[in-house]
């Protein structure tokens, strides 16, 4: 007896700064410029979230997930991306999409139930994924294309802790491992998949170590430490771009808001847990870091908030000016090359709507 080997449990999350914002001893920190860039996006994310939730309450957009509390992970990752890298993420990575160049107007349009694309030329991103896990094999496919074309670029494939249970998560990560593709898998473990806590999602001690099951190096990082997230992602992305293959990152963070505007988190998690995490809000933590490092200009946050509000105000206005989607557009978007019969069928559908005055 005693042949079975117990699963190891020996991970500590990587941190570059302490909760109070002070750098930990002997760490290498990103430049002030990078730190400020990350902070700027974190503030933008916070304001974006507020704005989207308020638009939803006003009935101006549909159901939307809150990203509050996860700005450090999203921005740390986003700033580490280069223009030529691909982003494959979900509704929880809206901030990373914004950092990567997707205009706020496109995302607002998406949540207004309109056509969010095409994204501007040169912005390499898959659509914001709603079907949990589906982006993972797709990211492997993007990675395969980069590898075949020998482009020095990487793909980042993002998902949540819950998503790691899906078959597609497994198939995508395994494919990238087996073919040595330039993909960084980035899991935002925010503690919950709607009402299901991380511990009931998988018995694995960490999500990070799942990377080993696919033969790739892995890191567990404090997802509320944006500098650590940035540095880990930078390493992983550079490795990928240089032909070093895939890697796997778990960023431990917390969803401070509801899952979406349709969710009532008080049904399943205690207020005390949320309160504790409010105290670990990554935004003030990052601000404390900048202040301690002496690179925080007076009134910076307020100024960035103001800027964000202006940008978002314009984006909302532009989105609301877009004419609503027509049935013709839906047909146009179904086929790139309509067959003659498909065209006849389109005309018939449109005629049916015209007949009853719905068009």
């Amino acid at each position: 007896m005693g042949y079975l080997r117990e699963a190891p449990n020996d991970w500590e999350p990587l941190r570059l700064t302490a909760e109070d914002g002070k750098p930990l001893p002997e760490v290498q920190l990103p430049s002030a410029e990078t730190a400020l860039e990350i902070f700027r996006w974190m503030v933008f994310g916070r304001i974006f979230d507020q704005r989207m939730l308020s638009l939803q309450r006003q009935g101006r957009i549909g159901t939307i997930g809150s990203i509050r509390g996860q700005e450090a992970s999203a921005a740390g990752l986003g700033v580490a991306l280069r223009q030529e890298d691909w982003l494959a993420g979900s509704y929880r990575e809206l901030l990373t999409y914004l950092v990567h160049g997707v205009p706020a107007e496109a995302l607002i349009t998406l949540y207004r139930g309109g056509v969010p694309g095409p994204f501007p030329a040169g912005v390499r991103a898959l659509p914001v994924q709603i079907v949990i896990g589906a982006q993972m094999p797709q990211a492997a496919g993007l990675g395969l294309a980069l590898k075949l074309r020998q482009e020095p670029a990487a793909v980042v494939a993002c998902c949540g802790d819950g998503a790691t249970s899906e078959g597609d998560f497994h198939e995508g990560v395994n494919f990238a491992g087996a073919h040595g593709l330039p993909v960084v898998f980035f899991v935002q473990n925010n503690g919950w998949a709607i009402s299901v806590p991380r511990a009931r999602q998988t018995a694995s001690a960490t999500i990070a170590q799942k990377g080993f099951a696919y033969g790739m190096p892995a890191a567990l990082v404090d997802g509320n430490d944006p500098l650590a997230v940035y540095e880990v992602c930078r390493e992983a992305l550079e490795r990928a771009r240089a032909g070093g293959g895939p890697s796997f990152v778990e960023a431990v963070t917390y969803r401070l808001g509801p899952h979406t505007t349709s969710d009532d988190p008080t049904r399943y998690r205690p207020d005390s847990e949320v309160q504790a995490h409010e105290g670990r809000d990554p935004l003030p933590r990052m601000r404390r870091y900048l202040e301690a490092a002496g690179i925080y200009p007076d009134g910076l946050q307020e100024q960035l908030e103001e800027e964000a509000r202006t940008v978002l105000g314009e984006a909302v206005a532009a989105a609301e000016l877009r004419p609503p989607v027509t049935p013709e557009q839906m047909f146009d978007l179904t086929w790139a090359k309509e067959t003659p019969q498909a065209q006849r069928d389109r005309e018939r559908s449109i005629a049916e709507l015209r007949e009853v005055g719905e068009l």
Partner: protein
Amino acid sequence: MKANLVEAVQDGLRIALREDPDCLVLGEDVGRNGGVFRATDGLQQEFGDQRVLDTPLAESSIAGVGLGLAAAGMHPVCEIQFAGFLYITMNQIGSQVARLRMRTGGGLKAQMVIRAPYGGNVRTPDLHSDSFEALYAHTPGIKVVLPATAYAAKGLLLAAIEDPDPVLFLEPMRIYRGFREEIPEGRYTVPLGQARVAREGTDVTIVAYGAEVSTALEAAEALQMEHIEAEVIDLQTVAPLDAETVIGSVRKTGRAVVVHEAARPVGVGAEVVARIQEEAFYSLEAPVERVTGWPTPYPFVQAEGLYVPSMARIAAAVRRTLSA
């Protein structure tokens, strides 16, 4: 008792859990959260987390675990959070659940129910509004049931749970809380595989199911003003389809309109049309019309109101068949 459709589902689940020790409920967020639509609200409190179980976020395993439970003699009721994710369960249900009986020569049975809210016009995100009944109706070995009222929801669900065959139970999300009606307390069943005449009429037969039954009834009311008496058939089960009830009605009216919100090509509507023309050919006085979703993916929310068949589109189709 008064109940809306989702409350009727919940009541049915509660009765099954109380009376059948082999019954259990599993799915994403069905436990403490009570399901994203509250269909399982309070059940975990009452029956414990062994019988009302949150699963990992993995739909193929929800169906596959259901099969394993059923093979061991339990009667699982699996929830898929939205019907759009039934794409993911296609392999476990189509290649496994629907064929367990066949593969084992009747040795093991898949007495299980897979529930999912379906359908559009509720301003949900991408893939949360789809209707995939046709995929499963093309998959013999699983029954496909779609209730149109609170009464039917509870009665059909209880029938599905005690049916020895697997049942896909699609709940019309749009009318979950649409109306409350009086339903009996306690256990009662509505038989599977049997359509229902929701409204009698003589001039034309409107065939619908799920949320579209209400729309069809509204259309019938509107048509009455024009002295058109439409008979409305609520299929209730689309596989195996109760063609006989439809045929009987069309033999009487000579005209028919079939309605569903799923995409038009190779939908349940096509099967209904095929059946009608096969068996009531000589009674037909006009082509059977289909009022359905377009031959496109389910559209962006801004256009969905034009995709899901409206009362006006149904009424117009009726008028077309009458003037044909």
